[in-house]
């Protein structure tokens, strides 16, 4: 087995475009669940409306990338409002049900012939990233190496933009969570009745959180479309939502850098296992096997570090009410 090349691939995967995209999406999920306590099991839906918002605007309506970005953001906001307005007044579980259903329903809807004029359905929507690529100062086809890290120019460009967005997102979260706004959000997570009894409009805060986190998810979708250029509704598998949950819990829910660290570790493990299992050459379905191993790693994590890598175990042990 070529350990050197497996390690190099794993390290490259750790910082690669998808690690960045997942980190960005998880920032939004962390705002939802980690800080506000909203059970969002359909984060993929936000990524999808973001991805197809910009994709359709560019490919089908001939708009520029910037207008496409605006469409994607608006689409995420609308989705958050549509999901949140009817469900956020109810108990937390209802949002979970609504979001998980929305994720599935949207994927099927985007894939249907009814919406083919907008999404191209199963035939794929593209090319959407031409304008994005023209802004790339790097050579798209060239391989760039930094020690063990190796990336194509196109990937590197996506990474630069997406990791920058992640950093900006983290900064924004840092500012927000130190502010009284963040304090109210955390109080909603702890006990929304208490927050209401102190004069806080809990519904409005939950909606703000859902919208902001949804936009972060939408932006992750935008970057995915810029990365893939051709986008298929079938890509937006509900499994991804749960990868995002894994990343959040792995890094530590309710921690600013939790999603970033979680994504790095997750993608390192994911790419490493892929190379390792292929190297073993056991005749396994390595794709399935690595998911099983990641699952096992998570079980161990939950046993030995239930609050995640950055989480505070003492804090987690406190009874919630």
């Amino acid at each position, binding site marked *: 087995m070529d350990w050197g090349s497996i390690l190099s691939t794993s390290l490259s995967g750790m910082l690669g475009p998808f690690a960045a995209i997942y980190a960005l999406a998880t920032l939004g999920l962390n705002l939802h669940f980690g800080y506000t306590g909203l059970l969002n099991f359909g984060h993929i839906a936000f990524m999808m409306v973001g991805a197809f918002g910009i994709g359709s605007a560019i490919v089908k309506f001939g708009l520029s990338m910037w207008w496409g970005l605006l469409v994607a953001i608006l689409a995420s906001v609308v989705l958050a409002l549509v999901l949140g307005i009817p469900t956020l007044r109810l108990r937390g579980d209802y949002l979970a049900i609504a979001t998980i259903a929305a994720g599935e329903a949207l994927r099927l809807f985007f894939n249907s012939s009814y919406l083919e004029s907008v999404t191209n359905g199963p035939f794929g929507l593209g090319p959407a990233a031409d304008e994005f690529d023209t802004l790339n100062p790097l050579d798209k086809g060239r391989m760039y190496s930094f020690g063990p890290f190796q990336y194509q120019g196109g990937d590197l460009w996506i990474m630069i933009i997406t990791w920058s967005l992640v950093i900006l997102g983290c900064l924004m979260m840092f500012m927000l969570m130190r502010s009284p706004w963040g304090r109210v959000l955390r*109080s909603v997570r702890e006990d929304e009745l208490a927050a209401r009894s102190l004069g806080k409009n809990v519904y409005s805060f939950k909606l703000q959180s859902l919208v902001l986190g949804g936009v972060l998810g939408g932006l992750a979708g935008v970057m995915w479309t810029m990365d893939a250029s051709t986008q298929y509704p079938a890509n937006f598998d509900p499994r991804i939502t749960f990868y995002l949950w894994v990343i959040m819990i792995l890094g530590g829910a309710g921690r600013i850098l939790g999603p970033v660290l979680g994504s790095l570790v997750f993608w390192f493990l994911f790419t490493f296992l892929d190379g390792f299992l292929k190297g073993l050459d056991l005749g396994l379905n390595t794709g399935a096997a690595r998911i099983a191993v990641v699952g096992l790693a998570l079980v161990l994590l939950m046993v030995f570090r239930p609050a995640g890598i950055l989480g505070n175990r003492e804090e987690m042990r406190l009874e919630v009410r």
Partner: protein
Amino acid sequence: MKSDDVDTTPHDGGVMGEEVTDPSVAAAREQLVHAAEAPQELSVGARPLVNVEARPGVSKPDPIMIADKVSRRFGGLLAVDVEHLEVQRGTITALIGPNGAGKSTFFNLVSGFDKPTTGRWSFNGKDISGKPAHRIARMGMVRTFQLTKALTRMTALQNMMLGATGQTGERFLPALVPPAWRGQEKAVTARADDLLKRFNLAHMRDQFAGTMSGGQRKLLEMARAMMVEPELIMLDEPMAGVNPALTQSLLGHIQKLRDEGTTIILVEHDMDVIMSISDWIVCFAEGSVIAEGRPDDIRSNEAVIDAYLGARRALPTDDAAQEAMQP
């Protein structure tokens, strides 16, 4: 209205005229009569209520909250059915009644945490029926909960600071610009620290509320409610699960709040506590108000005794006790 209500409790009448031979009984009776006619001991809260008649739905000289025909039905059960209730400003008003009498449900209704089937109620002369809970709280009518709701994974200080109303930094865009709220934050911190000190929680300032004892959480919840600067504070069983020593301290805090002009409504089961601190008592049974009055009125009220103990068995009243002591 009866003007002599405070001077004679009805049950004294029975023994008044009788000839008493045993000196210890005479002494006990003296004490009883004196306790009842001690107007100099009346609290700030009790004074305006001296001439108020003790009957359900009676109007008060200066009510802060008025509830009218408030009812709440859960399926076939009429949990609350209050014809008319006024709460005098600046008093400690206790709601008592057996379990399931509708006290907590009534709390939930008037504080906006539940919607009534019928009824209107007003606070400070403003109709607040059907207003959402957070609006009612902001208007100055704040409640606490029977099961304490300390925000466990936030520190005591953060719990307190949450209570302050009208914070600029709680709006999304200003939240991103610290200079917009830093000054206010400082003022809020100072106020929170003062209240923490007052409620003997200063040493817990930076501890997670989840590490506090049950009694400390009750104190924290009360202090946090005070951060809202309420005119009326509604305490749902503030003494439940609190050790006796801390109960005394909680009582002291409640009385002090009243003396400073805050109106307090509390639901409580401990009769000693209620009789010792209440200025006015409202007794609920099966959803309705069956009696209202000063502690002395309530102590001897037949309807209250029936509601608590059933009509057939009653605790020995003071006269019964005295009769038993006579040879």
